């Protein structure tokens, strides 16, 4: 990934610049276990009616860590990462993000959503807004930036995700891969401390998957904390610090990719990996 952003930063507010690996003060990929904790989940439960979907999730994520969460369909992966920014409410347990506990208090929810970016399987770009407006909406309305500043930042991000020339188009005029990269830029524009990805390449044609994974890899290198639900095992092997296998609403097993791929401890993990790796 080309990196023209070694120019002096004009904006001291930015906590982490997603793509500047050399300049980033935080821990690089493969973060040490002494990095500060950014997400802390204790005994998280979630029911849909009588259906017990999350059955006690404990998880600690440190700053700069890249997690890949995988598991069978219906195991609760989406539900779990969506509880982290309150797109779903958890009914028992504790979730603390960047020192803020998720409660019913809307101020806490708003504060956490400012720090957590999310990328969806179906992109969910706003079809009535241009690419540029999609990206600047949050910074202008939530962060209170001026339009000029937000647009400047948006152009910078579009260059980083490799589509600087598409700013004035509407989302549906772009290819799937381009749309997903816009969606990543939109999330990054809020300068989040954590990025959540829910199967970001599952809706893409095969030839577009790598362009999105490349952007995600660049982001990981820059020291962003990332939780990715994905079955792209090549990405997991090369980029993840930790892999988390979920089944039936619980974390069955987790560990570094080498351990998960070469010596999984649990039978269920072994069977699932055998299935998806053919």
């Amino acid at each position: 990934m080309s990196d023209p952003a070694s120019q002096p930063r004009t904006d001291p507010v930015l906590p982490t610049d997603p793509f500047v690996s050399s300049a980033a003060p935080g821990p690089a990929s493969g973060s040490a276990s002494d990095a500060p904790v950014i997400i802390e989940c204790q005994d998280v439960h979630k029911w849909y009616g009588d259906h017990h979907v999350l059955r006690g999730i404990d998880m600690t994520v440190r700053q700069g860590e890249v997690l890949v969460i995988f598991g069978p369909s219906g195991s609760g992966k989406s539900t779990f990462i969506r509880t982290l920014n309150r797109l779903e409410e958890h009914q028992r347990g504790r979730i603390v993000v960047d020192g803020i506990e998720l409660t019913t208090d809307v101020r806490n929810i708003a504060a956490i959503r400012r720090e957590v970016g999310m990328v969806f399987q179906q992109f969910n770009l706003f079809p009535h807004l241009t690419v540029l407006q999609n990206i600047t909406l949050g910074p202008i309305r939530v962060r209170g930036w001026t339009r000029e500043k937000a647009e400047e930042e948006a152009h910078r991000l579009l260059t980083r995700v490799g589509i600087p020339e598409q700013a004035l188009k509407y989302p549906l005029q772009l290819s799937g891969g381009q749309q997903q990269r816009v969606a990543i830029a939109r999330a990054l524009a809020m300068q989040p401390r954590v990025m959540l990805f829910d199967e970001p390449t599952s809706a893409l044609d095969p030839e577009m998957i790598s362009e999105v994974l490349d952007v995600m890899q660049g982001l990981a290198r820059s020291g962003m904390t990332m939780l990715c639900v994905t079955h792209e095992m090549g990405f997991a092997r090369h980029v993840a610090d930790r892999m988390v296998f979920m089944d039936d609403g619980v974390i069955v097993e987790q560990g570094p990719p080498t351990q998960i791929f070469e010596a999984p401890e649990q039978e269920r993990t072994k069977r699932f990996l055998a299935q998806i790796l053919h």
Partner: protein
Amino acid sequence: MTDVLSTRPMDPPGAPRLPPPREERGIVGWLRHNLFRTWRDSIVSVVLLVIIGLVVVQLLEWALLSARWGVITQNLRLFLIGLYPADEAWRVWLSLTVVSVVAGAQAGTRGGYSRTIAVWLIAGQLTVAILALLSPMGPLVAAAIAANAGLTLVVQLATAKRPLPGRVLTIGWLVSLVATLVLLHGGAGIPVVRPDAWGGLLLTFMLASVSIVLSFPLGVALALGRRSRLPAIRLLATAFIEIVRGVPLVSILYLSSILLPLFLPGDLRIDQVVRAMGGMTLFTAAYLAENVRGGLQAVPRGQVEAAQAIGLSGVQIDRFIVLPQALRMTIPANVGLFISLLKDTTLVVIVSLLEILGIGRAVLAQAEWLGASFEVYAFIAIVFFVLSYSMAHASYRLEAALGVGRR
């Protein structure tokens, strides 16, 4: 083989690109294809063409030779402004001037559907000017109205070169609304003309445009209220919508004309026209709310989630994400609603207001014009058709323009 490939590299050998078959092209081709394809088609086409031809000839013969169009031109002022005092009629033309300028500015700046509206406005005013020339209203009024049309065109051309900021247009429309009301009603130094003296096309226009402008925000608010998380608001909005939709407009007009004064302090007199506007606004808002609710439901859940994920508040999500998409989807339904509203203005005759249809009946009651009813109703039908069609036409253009980026 090799030269075929070298001249047409994309064609597989043996599959040359050919022009379409000859008989499909041109007018003759079209006729043959669409009207005379088979024996049966041909017979049906000939019979229909003969019938249509006979009707058109008859109509033209009547319209050009025997119709008494004097009933329109001699009563033109009544048709246009009803019993609005003749000495004050300049105020109507002047308010049209204001609207013409703003419409021209909008058309020049925005193009697209705004230009469609401007074209209809110009054509309409020119037609009225010609009629005025043939009427006792005389050349001066005709010239004033024609000048309005010219002004629209001039402003449009000027602003096409130097577009105005969007904010100026919004302010322009607000100013023209207030200016129109002040000019027509009077006060601030000019003599008051009570709205109950408004009539004819003027009244039709005022009823329709005031009701449209007011029902829009009310309808949107009701639609949002119906989805509110607060049960009290939800209940109120739902009850209002269902009750109003369950009652015919005629009864709402009666009720607002009889009941409204009872709720107000005795010395406060509200004109019948204002009550009718209120009734039509409430009626239209209830239907509009249901259209908008349909649109709100059609906005995918993922849009709201994406907006929440970037931290927008609930109000911001409605304002920037959900409503814009919902309202776009409901343009066809809402324009349809506004066209019905335009035609429903004829119902105010039951609370003894004389919009254009009421004026038509009053004119026909004059001994002089007995038997000219076909002329009068044909004229009114044409007026309503042109108004409705111009709205529909502009909305097709608007939909096409908003379709950008939506496939």
